[in-house]
């Protein structure tokens, strides 16, 4: 049933052989084809700009006031590429292997290989677009190392790599807007997908300024809407990040793959109050030079600097001597949780661990550390008022990245023909855990290099079809459903706020479906979420109307979808009876507390179909022809 369309032939040749065989469209015909791109982050803006350059007629949407705000902007650390500039034994194969292993062998070989293969040209592309990547005095590009890897292949622009890449993509997008090849709709949120005769043919979007519902028809729809970890409420994501577009697509027939695979980032700032809306991320690159520790004594109330060396537990170095502080994110997060749960946490709420730069400053001097992380230290001081050159930072794990997303084949098409999902909103390359500095990479590769070379294979046939128009009955139907949902929300008039329910949902999700999960907890979570969902629809109060800018309504619409998505996440975590990557089931662990994967029974991608409020599991078996899955050890 699930056809991943992986091309035949040896791994190294799959992408090139795919390209030689896929159908082409002549330039004169491309302009007759309209493509909708929802989302304007690295994946969306990259795709929209590149498709426009190729000659397609592109319409691009984002809910923010400008494409430049998309949350790709927040990725700090860098972007990986197998350039081997450091002469340290890196290669496409090694990067492929690292990524596959980092994902705990829960992703497709062919996709991951393509990601590694296209990484080097991507750096060329960004340099050409004017990204000010860090350089050596000699003028060549600089690299640094990153978690889960033993070579230096990460390219970076201070602590603002994501921002610089996004600005490049955004400026390329606006270049094409100037050329009138892209119509840009900021402050528009997609509220439904329109499927005609089984094919994706348009969307319903709400103009966030006027509240007007608008219809947009196209020959193909590309979703690039990012991650959905705001389902936990407290996360490193932007407040507006949501899962609504992919959820609506899921309800219209797109399979949702591995929804429970959520990465928890080890280096965020700890929660300090109930009203908190967000956990600020401190770049993982800090772990290059910072050392993570907790006191050896429980409830040690001394100031960090007053605790002598021999009374500090550098637990990552202790448990994982060969990777130490650079252990992959899932492992570092879980290790922190283990220490905090055991009562060794620090800070006023005992919910943090120390990230200490004392040794790095002693070794390299304050100037070097300032060069490498200056803006991060500054940011830390702005938020906490603490000078991290003098005192260690306090960090804590936080929900960060959704490996899961809409199921896509090798062409990045979902199970709805003509509907594509690119970037974080799909499930493709990261398996059960994403390596640091691979998210910018995947989003960019999908948007710039893959989609523009696969969408033609579908659109070539669409040329012969009638172009859809917005007066098709399916548009009426979809718009009516959206209107009904909005009216329903506005007429509940209960006595609780949207945020109240979001906090409730977040607590359940964080407790039962984050760093460590178990059968009983997930079972309880499912029934609790159902209760919260029912309470939401009966007791929520959304003030204001539909025909105006209404931020409360926007939040309510997003939460309504999160409440359903949370159910699916727990259902998925419930059925996967093994531990792999970020998915850690307490029942499946070694005596030392390491994850126990089960390749015999669980070497598959779970892909869920929506069926009237129920979820049906389909499995895409993962076949490893080139790499033998091994126990993922970073010891």
């Amino acid at each position, binding site marked *: 049933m699930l056809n991943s369309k992986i091309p035949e032939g040896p791994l190294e040749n799959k992408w090139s052989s795919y390209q030689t065989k896929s159908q082409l469209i002549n330039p004169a015909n491309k302009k007759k084809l309209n493509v909708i791109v929802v989302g304007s982050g690295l994946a969306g803006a990259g795709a929209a700009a590149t498709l426009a350059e190729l000659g397609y007629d592109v319409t691009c949407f984002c809910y923010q006031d400008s494409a430049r705000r998309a949350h790709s902007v927040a990725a700090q650390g860098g972007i990986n590429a197998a350039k081997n*500039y450091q002469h340290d034994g890196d290669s496409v194969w090694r990067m492929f292997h690292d990524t596959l292993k980092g994902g705990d062998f829960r992703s497709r070989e062919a996709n991951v290989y393509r990601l590694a293969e296209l990484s080097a040209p991507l750096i060329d592309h960004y340099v050409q677009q004017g990204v000010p990547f860090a350089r050596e005095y000699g003028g060549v590009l600089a690299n640094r190392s990153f978690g889960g890897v033993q070579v230096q292949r990460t390219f970076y622009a201070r602590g603002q790599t994501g921002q610089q890449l996004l600005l490049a993509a955004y400026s390329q997008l606006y270049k094409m807007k100037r050329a009138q090849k892209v119509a840009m709709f900021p402050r528009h949120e997609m509220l439904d997908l329109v499927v005609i005769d089984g094919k994706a043919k348009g969307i319903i979007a709400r103009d966030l300024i006027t509240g007007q519902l608008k219809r947009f028809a196209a020959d193909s729809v590309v979703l690039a809407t990012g991650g959905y970890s705001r389902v936990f409420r407290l996360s490193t994501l932007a407040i507006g990040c949501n899962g609504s577009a992919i959820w609506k697509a899921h309800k219209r027939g797109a399979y949702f793959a591995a929804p429970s695979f959520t990465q928890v980032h080890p280096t965020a700032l700890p929660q300090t109050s109930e*009203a908190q809306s967000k956990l600020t991320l401190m770049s993982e690159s800090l772990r290059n030079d910072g050392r993570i520790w907790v006191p050896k004594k429980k409830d040690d109330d001394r100031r960090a600097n007053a605790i002598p060396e021999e009374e500090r537990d550098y637990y990552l170095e202790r448990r994982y001597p060969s990777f130490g502080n650079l252990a992959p994110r899932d492992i570092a997060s879980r290790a922190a949780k283990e220490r905090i749960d055991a009562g060794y946490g620090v800070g006023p709420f005992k919910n943090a661990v120390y990230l200490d730069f004392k040794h790095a400053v002693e070794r390299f001097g304050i100037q070097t550390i300032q060069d490498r992380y200056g803006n991060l230290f500054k940011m830390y001081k702005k938020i906490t008022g603490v000078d991290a050159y003098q005192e260690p930072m306090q960090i804590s794990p936080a929900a960060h990245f959704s490996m899961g997303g809409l199921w896509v084949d090798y062409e990045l098409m979902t199970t709805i023909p003509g509907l594509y999902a690119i970037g974080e909103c799909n499930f493709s390359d990261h398996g059960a855990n994403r390596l640091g500095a691979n998210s910018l990479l995947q989003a960019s590769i999908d948007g710039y290099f893959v989609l523009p070379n696969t969408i033609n294979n579908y659109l070539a046939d669409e040329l012969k079809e009638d172009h859809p128009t917005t007066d098709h009955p399916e548009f009426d139907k979809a718009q009516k459903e959206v209107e009904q949902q909005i009216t329903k929300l506005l007429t509940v008039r209960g006595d609780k706020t949207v945020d109240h329910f979001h906090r409730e949902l977040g607590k359940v999700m964080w407790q039962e479906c984050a760093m460590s999960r178990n059968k009983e907890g997930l079972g309880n979570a499912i029934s609790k979420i159902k209760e919260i969902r029912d309470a939401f629809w009966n007791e929520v109060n959304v003030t204001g109307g539909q025909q*105006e800018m*209404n931020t409360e309504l926007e939040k309510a619409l997003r939460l309504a979808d999160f409440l359903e998505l949370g159910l699916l996440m727990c259902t998925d975590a419930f059925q996967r009876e093994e531990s792999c990557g970020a998915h850690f089931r307490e029942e499946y662990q070694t005596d030392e507390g390491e994850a126990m994967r089960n390749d015999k029974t669980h070497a598959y991608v779970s892909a869920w179909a929506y069926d009237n409020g129920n979820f049906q599991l389909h499995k895409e078996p993962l076949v490893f022809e080139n790499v033998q899955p091994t126990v993922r050890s970073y010891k």
Partner: protein
Amino acid sequence: MKIVFKIWRQVNSKSQGGFETYEVDGLTEDMSFLEALDYLNERLVQRNEKVIAYEYDCREGICGQCGVFINGRAHGPHDNITTCQLHMRSFKDGETVVVEPWRAAAFPVIKDLVVDRSAFDRIIEQGGYISARTGTAAEANAILVGKEVVDRAMDAAACIGCGACVATCKNASAALFTAAKINHLNSLPQGKPEASNRVLEMTRQMELEGFGSCTFTGACEVECPEEIPMINIAEMNARRVKAKWLGK
């Protein structure tokens, strides 16, 4: 802690606005300023009132979407931060805090504290890019770029487009924003081929959008969350003189 918020309310771009006063009790010093507004909004919902519209997204100081005028300063009482990085510990218990939208003719108010900054996008659209197509790039290390050059480009490129420079400027000048993008691209070898057109077209668009001119008060560099210095404006002027009068 208790704060008396005096907040600008305006139904939409066409309507007249005015200040409303809200007494909010139960805030804590650890709350960010935006979380305090969230808290106020939840109280408003409980009173069946319409919530206050204000903007934010990443809440970690990088997306540039948040931004209001707080107690007479863009992004509040501290230098070089964003609104989302401001915390309630910066205010005194019982203090009155005046919250206003960015004021500039080129940034019309959409609702309450939300303004339309699309003028910035249109400035970028006029040349804030390098017109090379995807797939045409040469090997990244083929062109060497000195560390000093790229560091200076990065200093300018750090702009988050929040609009505080315009908001704080008595002339509502967008010179710092425009200069930052021009200097970022024009100082890199990749940006050189289009350098002259870029500076001329972007500055022309800046004027068409109705921003005022720079009189070097220096307020912008104090409010800029990325600490982009005003010297960038002088550099842009030099680049413009060169493009306009000294040939391409």
